[in-house]
């Protein structure tokens, strides 16, 4: 991680940590302030923001202008050759801050699940964390030099430890931002990135899933046919987080020569209808169905420009996000069932004194650590710029299947209580069912 200006005289190995230390002298150190990036944002908000793209109601976004032709990419993270599972000082500090926020998420989770939406106050609290700056390269207004896939995994995991559905909602925007930084053209970057660094950042979402059995992201039914300078989109997407509040979507579609690409589609485009679609879980994320009927997008609105992107790798970065989400939620299950099994008495002693119960809890731990370590491997390879297709596939498989098993055992351990909505485990069960299915919404 890099910083723009370091006024602290104390040089440490971790410049960002020194930066926060410097600011903490002035800021009160109450909860949530440890990582107060507001000051940083005030300094570094990219001036171009005001002149940047307006969210128009026009039929499609057109990316024109005079970029220097070269998109900004973050460098692969550097690592010593050592096998090392520890987080650095920066990461620990960010984790601590997000953990505090996650407590608020947990406390509000039941209400949010019932209301099918996150309240404004919590959104404001989240936006104050200003996580975008930890994603965006220096030259685009952020503070980053190197890829920080590991840090982002930790962020998503920690948020999901608070609540899975909310974590998905909160990271939806940041996922689109990652996608633009990872894959956008220079013009797409300079047009779109500043909108994420504003005080009221833009909302956008990734839409890949389609409502069909045995869905595969590699066999899309949504088509994008080229006509002149435009692509015509037809098809259906669903399970799209926060669909109604988005300004635009990154939509996966199949082009005529059978390659899959992502298209930047304005929500207000003609022929696009967005409908709230209640589902088994993830209520906080307000899942939506998108229906495309001859929706026209300009040819410049293909993510990555004419050459498009490496679609397979794009999907793999989405899967990383879902792995981290599953790990965080399963940790929540484990943390919940331990005190429950100790406090719940049956036959004159805590149920945790019975091997049938205790061994289920041991197995949750064993499989959770399995999920976590495979996710860490895939993420660390991604951050280092190494091929991670195999690793993410295996991690995602384990997170899907063991994650669901943990969700189910979480309820089983609580017995009848587990089935009642006063207890969080039934929500986690419903949310964890999504992990094997969803590609949408997340992108590390």
């Amino acid at each position: 991680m890099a910083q723009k200006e370091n006024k602290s005289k104390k040089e440490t190995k971790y410049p960002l940590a020194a930066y926060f230390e410097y600011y903490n002298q002035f800021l009160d150190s109450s909860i949530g302030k440890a990582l107060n990036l507001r000051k940083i944002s005030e300094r570094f908000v990219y001036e171009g923001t005001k002149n940047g793209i307006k969210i128009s109601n026009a039929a499609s976004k057109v990316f024109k202008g005079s970029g220097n032709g070269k998109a900004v990419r973050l460098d692969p993270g550097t690592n010593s050759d050592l096998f090392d599972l520890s987080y650095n000082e920066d990461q620990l500090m960010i984790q601590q801050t997000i953990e505090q926020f996650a407590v608020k998420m947990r406390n509000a989770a039941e209400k949010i699940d019932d209301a099918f939406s996150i309240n404004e106050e919590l959104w404001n609290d989240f936006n104050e964390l200003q996580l975008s700056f930890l994603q965006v390269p220096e030259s685009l207004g952020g503070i980053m030099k190197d890829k920080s896939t590991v840090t982002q995994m930790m962020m998503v995991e920690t948020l999901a430890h608070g609540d899975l559905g909310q974590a998905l909602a909160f990271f939806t925007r940041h996922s689109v931002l990652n996608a633009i930084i990872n894959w956008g053209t220079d013009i797409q970057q300079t047009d779109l990135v500043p909108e994420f660094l504003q005080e009221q950042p833009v909302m956008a979402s990734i839409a890949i899933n389609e409502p069909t059995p045995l869905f595969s992201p590699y066999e899309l039914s949504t088509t994008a046919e080229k006509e002149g300078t435009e692509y015509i989109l037809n098809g259906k997407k669903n399970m799209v987080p926060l669909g109604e509040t988005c300004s635009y979507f990154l939509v996966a579609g199949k082009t005529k020569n059978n390659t899959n690409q992502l298209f930047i589609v304005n929500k207000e485009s003609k022929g696009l209808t967005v409908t709230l679609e209640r589902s088994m879980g993830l209520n906080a994320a307000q899942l939506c169905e998108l229906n495309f009927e001859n929706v026209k997008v300009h040819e410049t609105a293909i993510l990555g420009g004419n050459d498009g992107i490496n679609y397979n790798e794009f999907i793999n970065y989405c899967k990383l996000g879902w792995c981290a989400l599953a790990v965080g939620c399963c940790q929540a299950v484990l943390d919940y069932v331990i005190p429950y099994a100790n406090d719940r008495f049956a036959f004159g002693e805590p149920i945790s004194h019975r091997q049938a119960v205790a061994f289920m809890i041991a197995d949750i731990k064993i499989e959770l650590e399995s999920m976590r370590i495979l996710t860490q491997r895939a993420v660390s390879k991604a951050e280092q710029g190494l091929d991670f297709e195999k690793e993410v596939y295996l991690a995602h498989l384990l997170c899907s299947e063991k994650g669901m098993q943990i969700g189910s055992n979480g309820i089983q351990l609580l017995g009848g209580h587990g089935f009642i909505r006063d207890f969080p485990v039934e929500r986690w069960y419903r949310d964890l069912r999504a992990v094997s299915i969803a590609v949408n919404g997340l992108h590390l």
Partner: protein
Amino acid sequence: MNLEIPKKYKGIQNFATIAAKTIFRPVSRKYDVGEHEYPVELDLFAAGLNGMNDGSEGSLGGAATKREDVSDGQVRNGANMANCINIQAMCYGDVGLLLSIPGQGLGNSAISAVANPEQLKRFSKSWAAMAITEPNCGSDSSAITTSARKEGDFYVLNGEKIYVTSGERANAVVVWATLDKAIGKAAIKSFVVEKGTPGMEVVRLEKKMGIRASDTAAIVFTECKVPAENLLGSPDIDIKKGFGGVMETFDNTRPFVASMANGVAEAALERTKQLLEDKINLDYRTPINNVKSVEADLYRLEAEYEAARLLTLKAAWMADNRKPNSLDASICKAKAGRITNQLTLKCVDLCSSLGYSYKELIEKWARDSKILDIFEGTQQIQQLIIARRLLNKSSSELK
């Protein structure tokens, strides 16, 4: 964060893999069929190892890893990790043969963990087996009845030990015995009994389902006089410290046993994929619901194997960095033990009657693998350890 094998251990890994392929594999079936025959091929190999060990930070073969001092706060990769990598690679060759390498017994681990400097020196050239289990006690090692009675400068041992790996081939046995059965765990001490000591007799070599290359002995001690200076650690009975001391050895060795399992799993998975080569297409992309059943099986097995392998490296990494790893050592042993057993059995199944036949080693690995979920703490003992730690329960609460 980085979970790749560090470059500095690639050499060890390559060397061990070559040894596994060129020394172990060619005789793997020979000593499976010829149970109790002495694997002479290992003598030369062991001699080479001992030469190498004198200059390296870890000992090849898995014995004797003392915790090194780590005080500079820097992350390091050390002997525990090197051992895990090495053991896995050799067990990819043959786990029974690894257990039979002269000079690399579990007793050596125990000696290096608790011996004083004088003992360390005196037993440095020993090949020491480990004798804990008795006919009437397995997992509950605190219940042993073999007794040690002090008589002048000697202890006199009486009792029967079973399942002593290399108990006949080794030139010493580390024996657990109690100074006073009435006191319980705290009175259990370990004694080095050298081969040929009067009163020590190997009465039987077991016939086993797997790891047949490794001899498993039953040893009877009858008024067996052992020099008092062969008692490892302190001769005093410290009620407060109790059993902790002797159990510490296991925290160190569990990741090594997990590595053995990982090696067997790696071998079985690799061979199965080779045999199925023209029947499968693993693209690591198509959703699991949309692939062939055999492909889905292979993906699942690989994911489990990778998890076991990485959890083992994690436990070793923690040991190298002096992070308390008792929980993680049990996690990796539990995971590796159970998935290797499931994996090898599934591999036989996938390869049909070919997998079941002596033509391939897969059926052998499926037999070998079962013990890996039993010795050095069964699956259920690991689950107990993990559960007690998570739930903060004593052994009298969570039995």
